[in-house]
């Protein structure tokens, strides 16, 4: 073969796939223009309470008069819509999808609002080899959740991440300027190893980490102030030292009387400085 190649041919590339992708990115940037910060709640493993922390943090911030949105990036196991009492349908108007409104006026978008009860995330396609394109498809949904939703003016958009570490890189690509992360762990050594990977992943894509939350850090019966042991280990302290970030708080597992609106003030303060000009709302 002896013929010209792509860059030799000077005519327009009508498909211009690169430009189409560029416009998608620009759409995300424009849509998040009035969002002060985007905070991903990460862990690198399941079962540590990311969604609990996300919801509790969202409600605590909202009760300090912050305008808060929550994007559920755990597309396959979405929970925050239910936890925040948000329900569909999602309104489509003015060339955007409008988020559902949950407790304390928190704006929510989640695949939980799109899927039939009890049904997993599945794709309308006759194409096989799902493993080849599923990751790209999920990244496409995440991009649209950011770029096609009328988030409006927010003090903070919290993103409840899935257990895997790869989605943070997708998010960092789409929101390179405003993104930071909070890592959630439980005290155990196993959790420390997984969350360490998640924190390394955040560092690899230059996402600043605001700090560590150690969840299920001891056990409270809910009737007295005593905190007893639950898991062995000190993952929160170790991770904070290893990555030179603050251990924001330890949250005990409360057997009775637990409230998903309670969080230590230190954690809320880690997010709150941008909204400190507002007076706290009355509980």
């Amino acid at each position, binding site marked *: 073969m002896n013929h*010209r190649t792509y860059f030799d041919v000077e005519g327009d590339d*009508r498909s211009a796939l690169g430009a*189409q992708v560029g416009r*998608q990115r620009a759409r995300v940037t424009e849509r998040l223009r009035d969002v002060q910060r985007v905070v991903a709640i990460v862990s690198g493993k399941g079962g540590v309470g990311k969604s609990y922390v996300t919801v509790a943090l969202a409600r605590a911030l909202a009760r300090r008069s912050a305008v808060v949105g929550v994007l559920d990036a755990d597309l396959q196991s979405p929970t925050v819509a239910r936890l925040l009492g948000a329900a*569909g349908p*999602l309104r*489509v108007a003015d060339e955007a999808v409008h988020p559902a409104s949950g407790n304390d006026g928190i704006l929510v978008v989640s695949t939980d609002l799109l*899927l039939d009860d009890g049904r997993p995330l599945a794709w309308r*396609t006759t194409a096989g080899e799902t493993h080849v394109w599923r990751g790209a498809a999920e990244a496409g949904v995440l991009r*649209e959740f950011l770029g096609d939703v009328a988030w409006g003016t927010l003090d903070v958009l919290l993103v409840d991440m899935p257990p895997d570490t790869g989605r943070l890189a997708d998010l960092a690509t789409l929101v390179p300027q405003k993104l930071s992360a909070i890592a959630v762990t439980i005290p155990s050594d196993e959790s420390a190893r997984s969350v360490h990977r998640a924190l390394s992943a955040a560092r690899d894509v230059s996402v600043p980490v605001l700090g560590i939350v150690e969840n299920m850090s001891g056990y409270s019966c809910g009737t007295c102030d005593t905190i007893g042991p639950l898991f062995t280990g000190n993952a929160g302290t170790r991770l904070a030292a290893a990555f030179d970030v603050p251990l924001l708080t330890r949250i005990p597992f409360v057997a009775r009387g637990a409230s998903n609106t309670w969080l230590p003030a230190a954690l809320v303060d880690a997010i709150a400085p941008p909204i400190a000009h507002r007076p706290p709302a009355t509980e």
Partner: protein
Amino acid sequence: MKFLCIDCDTQMTFEDRQQPGDGTFAASFACPTCGRRVAMLANPMETQLVSTLGVEIGGRTLDEQPLEFTRKAVAGRDDAFAEDSSPTAPRAPRPVWSSDAEERLTRVPGFVRGMVKKIYSDYARDRSIAEITPAIMDRAREELGLEGM
């Protein structure tokens, strides 16, 4: 991507694209010098790969709609979205489907069946029609211009 007519050393121009409904994709190009035409034919997996990127071969002819890919690709609730109406506004109950209408719906290619079902469901709800029958489907198809659905 660009297509080059090697004999003429001329870039071919995009003519048309088709998605016949079996998950495949076709795009045709022609040489403006000699008139030779070629078609690029993609199998379902290749078509899906391009679709997941939210891009279109040959360029976009229509503006991208909000959550366009998600709404096309995710197999979800028929009533997940409410077009141009308040989410709190009362809507008619979800219509039931007669067995005849259900059977007819199975003839729609699987990858668009959910979207087609939603179109008919929305049509019925907007008109407070309690049951979707083949006659209602015919009426909707005529009013909404849904040939082939």
